[in-house]
C-alpha cells in the first residue's frame, strides 16, 4: 500500500475523533433549539464556564477571590483542599442546573412568545455576561484540567497498525474516550427525547406552548430542564476540550466551529449534529493533508465555513433538517 494512502487513513481517523468533539458542542445547540426554538449563542461560553467551575472546585479556589481581596484587603485565593474529580463534576453539574434556573427566571421567562431574533439577541447578551462573570469568579488565567482521563498515544493501535502497515498510527487516548462518551451521550439523549414523558413534553413545548399547557405541561419546568441538559452537554464538552487544550478563553470560540456543523447537519436533528461534526472533522483534516501545502497551510481555519456555505446554497435545511415549506 502506498504511503500516501496509509497516512490518509490516519488523517481520516484523527478527523473522525476531532469531529466527535465538534459534534458534542453542536449537540448542545440542537438540544436547546429543538426544545425551545432558541438558538443559544452562549453554548460555547457555557462550556468554558463549566470548565472554569470544574477546575475551580477541584483545586479549592475561592470564587470571586480578586473581588474579595480588593474590597477587604485580604489575600485569600485557595480554601486549601482538593476535591476528587467525580465529586467536583457532580458539584459543577449542580452549579450548571442553578445557572439554568437563574437564566430561565431572569431572562427567558419574560420573553415567552417573542420573535426568535429577540431570543437570539438575549443569548448573545448571556454569552458576554457569562464570559465576564466566569473571569471574575475564577480568574482569567489558563488552567490545566485533569480529571483522570487517559491521554497520550494509544500504544495498542500504534502497535497493531505497525504490524499491518509498517507504520504506526498516532491516535490520542483522549480522543477515543471522547468518542465513546459522545456516543453514549447521544444514544441516551435520543432515547430520552423519543420515549419518555419528559422528552415528549420537551418536544411538545418546542412545538406549541398553548397546546403544551393544555395537556398539563409546566413550561417553566421544561425550560429549566432543557437549559440544565444544555449545561450538562456543555460540561462534557468543557471537560473534553479543557483536558485537550486547557481551560481558557478560546474554549468559547469552539462554539463558532459548531455553526458550520449545524448548517451541514441541520439545526433540528441530533443525528445531524453527529454526522455534520464527523464530516467537518474528517473534511478539514483531509483537505489540509491533501491541499494544505499547496494553499499555504492553515486551511482548517476556513474549510468548514466554505463547506457550510456550499451547503447553504444547495441544501439550506442541512442534511437532516426539516424541509421548510411555505404555504402560499
Amino acid at each position, binding site marked *: 500500500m502506498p504511503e500516501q494512502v496509509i497516512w490518509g487513513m490516519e488523517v481520516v481517523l484523527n478527523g473522525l475523533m476531532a469531529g466527535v468533539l465538534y459534534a458534542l458542542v453542536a449537540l448542545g445547540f440542537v438540544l436547546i433549539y429543538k426544545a425551545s426554538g432558541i438558538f443559544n449563542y452562549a453554548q460555547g461560553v457555557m462550556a468554558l464556564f463549566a470548565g472554569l467551575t470544574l477546575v475551580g472546585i477541584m483545586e479549592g479556589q475561592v470564587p470571586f477571590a480578586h473581588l474579595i481581596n480588593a474590597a477587604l484587603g485580604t489575600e485569600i485565593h485557595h480554601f486549601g483542599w482538593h476535591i476528587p474529580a467525580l465529586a467536583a463534576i457532580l458539584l459543577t453539574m449542580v452549579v450548571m442546573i442553578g445557572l439554568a434556573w437563574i437564566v430561565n427566571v431572569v431572562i427567558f421567562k419574560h420573553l415567552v412568545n417573542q420573535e426568535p431574533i429577540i431570543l437570539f439577541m438575549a443569548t448573545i447578551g448571556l454569552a458576554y455576561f457569562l464570559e465576564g462573570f466566569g473571569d471574575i469568579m475564577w480568574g482569567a488565567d489558563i488552567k490545566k484540567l485533569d480529571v483522570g482521563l487517559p491521554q497520550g498515544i494509544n500504544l495498542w493501535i500504534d502497535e497493531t497498525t505497525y504490524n499491518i502497515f509498517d507504520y504506526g498510527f498516532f491516535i490520542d487516548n483522549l480522543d477515543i474516550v471522547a468518542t465513546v462518551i459522545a456516543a453514549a451521550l447521544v444514544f441516551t439523549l435520543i432515547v430520552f427525547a423519543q420515549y419518555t414523558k419528559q422528552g415528549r413534553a420537551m*418536544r411538545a413545548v418546542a412545538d406549541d406552548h398553548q*397546546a*403544551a*399547557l*393544555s*395537556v398539563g405541561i409546566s413550561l417553566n419546568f421544561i425550560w429549566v430542564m432543557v437549559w440544565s441538559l444544555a449545561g450538562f452537554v456543555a460540561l462534557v464538552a468543557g471537560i473534553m476540550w479543557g483536558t485537550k487544550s486547557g481551560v481558557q478563553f478560546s474554549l468559547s470560540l469552539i462554539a463558532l466551529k459548531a455553526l458550520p456543523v449545524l448548517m451541514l447537519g441541520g439545526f433540528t436533528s441530533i443525528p445531524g449534529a453527529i454526522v455534520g461534526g464527523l464530516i467537518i472533522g474528517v473534511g478539514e483534516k483531509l483537505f489540509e493533508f491533501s491541499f494544505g501545502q499547496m494553499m499555504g497551510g492553515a486551511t482548517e481555519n476556513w474549510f468548514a465555513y466554505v463547506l457550510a456555505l456550499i451547503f447553504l446554497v444547495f441544501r439550506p435545511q442541512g442534511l437532516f433538517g*426539516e424541509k421548510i415549506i411555505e404555504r402560499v
Partner: protein
Amino acid sequence: MLDASEGYTTEDGRKIGAVVMEMKNITLRFGGVVAIQDISFDVREGEIRAIIGPNGAGKSSMLNVISGFYNPQEGEVWYKGAKRPPMKPYQVAQQGIARTFQNIALFEGMTVLDNVMTGRIRQMKAGLISQAIWKGKAEREETENREFVEKIIDFLEIQHIRKTPVGRLPYGLKKRVELARALAAEPSILLLDEPMAGMNVEEKEDMSRFVLDVNDEFGTTIVLIEHDMGVVMDLSDRVVVMDYGKKIGDGSPDEVRNNQAVIDAYLGVAHD
C-alpha cells in the same frame, strides 16, 4: 326534572350524577370590555353540557376560564366540591380537565401517536433519573400508557395515521387527533371548543357520533361550545345560552329552543 343534589335521568335513560363543577357569578373583563358578566351555571357528572351563543357572546372566554387560560376578576369556580384557587392552565390540566381548541393546537412536528401520548403526562409519574436511564418504572409506565393510548386511537378510528406527523393531516383528522389527545388524559371533564367548526356535513356527523360514544363508553362529562344549533340540540342534555357576555337561557334543548330571549338573540328583534 332537576334535583339539587341527586341528578336526573335523561330521556334515553342515561343517569346523570351530582354537580361536578359550578361557576358562581363569573365576571371577566379585558380592560374596559366585559367579556363575561356575572354568569353562573353548573355541570353535572356524565352529562353533555353545551354553551351556545352568537359570535362574540363570550363562549370561548368561558371555556378559557374553566381551563385556566383566563382568570376571572370576580366569581368562583367550584370543582369537585371545593373552591378552586386561581390556577395556571397546566395545573388545571393536571386536575383532570382536558380541552381541545377552536383552531386546533396540536404538536405539528410530532406523530399522531406522540401527540396522543402527551395526553398521558398526568398518568406518568416516573422520576427524571429513571426516565434518563429508561429502566424500571419509566419503561413499565411507557408500555402501560402506550396500551391505553392505542385503545383510544382504535376508538377514534385513526389507526391508519398513527405514525404520520400531524402537520400533514387534513383538518378533519386533526380535530379528531386533538380529541384523542384530550381523551388520553382520562379527564373528569372534557372541554370541546367548537369541535365541528369548519367541517363538512359528513365530518360533522362523524364527530357527533364520537362525542356521543365518548360520553357513553367512558362516562366522560363533556362541556362543549358550538355554533351549529342543530348539532347542539341533538347532542346535549342541557344548554347554557350566552349573548353579549350575559346568560340569557339555561335548560334542556327544548326549553331553550322555546325561550323568547334566545330566539331574539339568534334571529334578531324588530325595532319599533
